[in-house]
């Protein structure tokens, strides 16, 4: 036995585990941006990317600085942000309300789920003329479009979240004779919070898309109007400034939701 074991080749067991565990490495995302922009800058300067294909990032930045200095940035940004906040707040709050009702009452569910499913796939932009007739060409029609667009995904996310609340917690509430209202406010709503917030991430991204669409179809000021104007003149620098502003807007909205999650959902494992 000992004689034989001397001749046996020894080697450590191969490691096959690890991976599949997301880790927070924020700098990588930043690095990807820097590398991509650096590559485009290099390409446009050297010339293998023609100025017709992509504008030079440094020119885009210069255009942005001009926009800022001329004061036009805020003139475009403030109406856009206020439209976004008012429209998304209306859509999300009505959506959460209706979603909770669907989650709690079978009758509401039976009545509204098919309706929501029917309006979900409608491209809301197609309804803008209708909203213009109903609410006028001014701000209200833009609020309505954004609100309507955020409403449907919020409803679906909310009632899904309410459905997913751990039933054993609800049974626990009943076993301690908690009132219906207490069970809803102290067990169902906090339990649905993670699902509602992750639904809001999607709804708010849709709200930004619709904001631009609404502004393209009739607004003097706003990021959408700015992009439309730049696009029709084939002014790629300004077009990219507009697009970059939208990206930053999207990242900020997502960061705000992330802050909410860290603050209110720190109980999650």
């Amino acid at each position: 036995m000992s004689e034989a074991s001397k001749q046996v080749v020894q080697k450590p067991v191969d490691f096959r585990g690890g991976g599949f565990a997301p880790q927070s490495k924020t700098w990588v995302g930043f690095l990807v941006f820097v590398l991509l922009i650096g590559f485009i800058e290099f390409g446009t300067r050297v010339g293998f990317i023609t100025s017709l294909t992509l504008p030079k990032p440094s020119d885009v930045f210069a255009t942005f600085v001009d926009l800022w200095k001329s004061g036009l940035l805020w003139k475009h940004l403030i109406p856009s942000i206020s439209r976004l906040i008012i429209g998304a707040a209306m859509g999300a709050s009505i959506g959460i309300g209706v979603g909770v009702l669907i989650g709690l009452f079978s009758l509401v569910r039976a009545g509204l789920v098919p309706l929501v499913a029917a309006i979900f796939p409608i491209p809301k932009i197609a309804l803008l003329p209708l909203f213009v007739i109903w609410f006028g060409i001014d701000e209200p029609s833009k609020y309505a479009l954004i609100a309507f667009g955020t409403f449907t995904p919020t409803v679906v996310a909310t009632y899904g979240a309410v459905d997913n609340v751990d039933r054993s917690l609800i049974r626990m509430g009943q076993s301690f004779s908690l009132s219906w209202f207490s069970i809803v406010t102290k067990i169902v709503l906090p339990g649905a919070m993670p699902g509602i917030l992750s639904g809001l991430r999607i709804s708010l991204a849709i709200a930004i898309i619709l904001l631009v669409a609404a502004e393209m179809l009739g607004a003097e000021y706003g990021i959408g109007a700015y992009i439309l104007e730049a696009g029709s003149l084939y002014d790629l620098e300004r077009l990219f400034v507009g697009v970059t502003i939208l990206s930053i807007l999207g990242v900020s909205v997502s960061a705000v939701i992330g802050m909410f999650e860290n603050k209110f959902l720190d109980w999650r494992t």
Partner: protein
Amino acid sequence: MDLRLEDIGHHYGDMEIMQGINLEIPAGKIICIVGPSGCGKSTLLRLIGGLERPTVGQVVQLGEPPEDSINPLTYVFQDFALLPWRTVEGNISLVLEDHGIRGSKADEIISDVLARTKLTDFRKALPKQLSGGMKQRVAISRALAVKPAVMLMDEPLSALDSQTRELLMDDLIGLWTREPFTAVYVTHNLNEAVRLGHSIVVLSRRPGRIREIVDVKIPLADRELGDPELERQQKHLWNLMRDEAMAADKELINV
């Protein structure tokens, strides 16, 4: 307050879960219910506490619960059922708030039950920071907070490892010895049953019927791990259950 189960029978659709259950639950005693899996132990517990309605028969409450009892029939669940977003303290105050107990009065109750379950240092902890045994201690202290007339315990130690289970069994015995409470204790673990039960109800496989009620005469506090008399009782219970358990294991699951 005693409870009496009168001729309880229960169906889910066409499937008969249990039939003809008659049982007395006297105050101050721990009744253990054991049986093969799928015999309706947990269903019976839900019927006793009014979380489900029996198809036939009724559960009768004999006498009034004590004046100070806030929630006479109180459950302790296998999966603890703690709200993950509330601290230990918050989880206990949850069940007091609805009965109008707040502020210093609630504080007093919370401090008392946490001391009794040795949790005083964990008052501000969130459930995610606690081990399984600690979580079940929180759930037990939450149940004690509402001063139940009858505790309905649904496999409270089954989700815990065996060392933690031993510790918690000792704690439960300690709690009972200091202040006897009434409990219906459902378990599939025969060792828990002989350690904690004043009498042990053995159910048959589906449809569940009472096969035998075994009384254990040794006082709770004197029941040691590995006591020969308890071993004998446990063996007797296992003999009663073995064939049923084997047959139950072979049944197709079509629930």
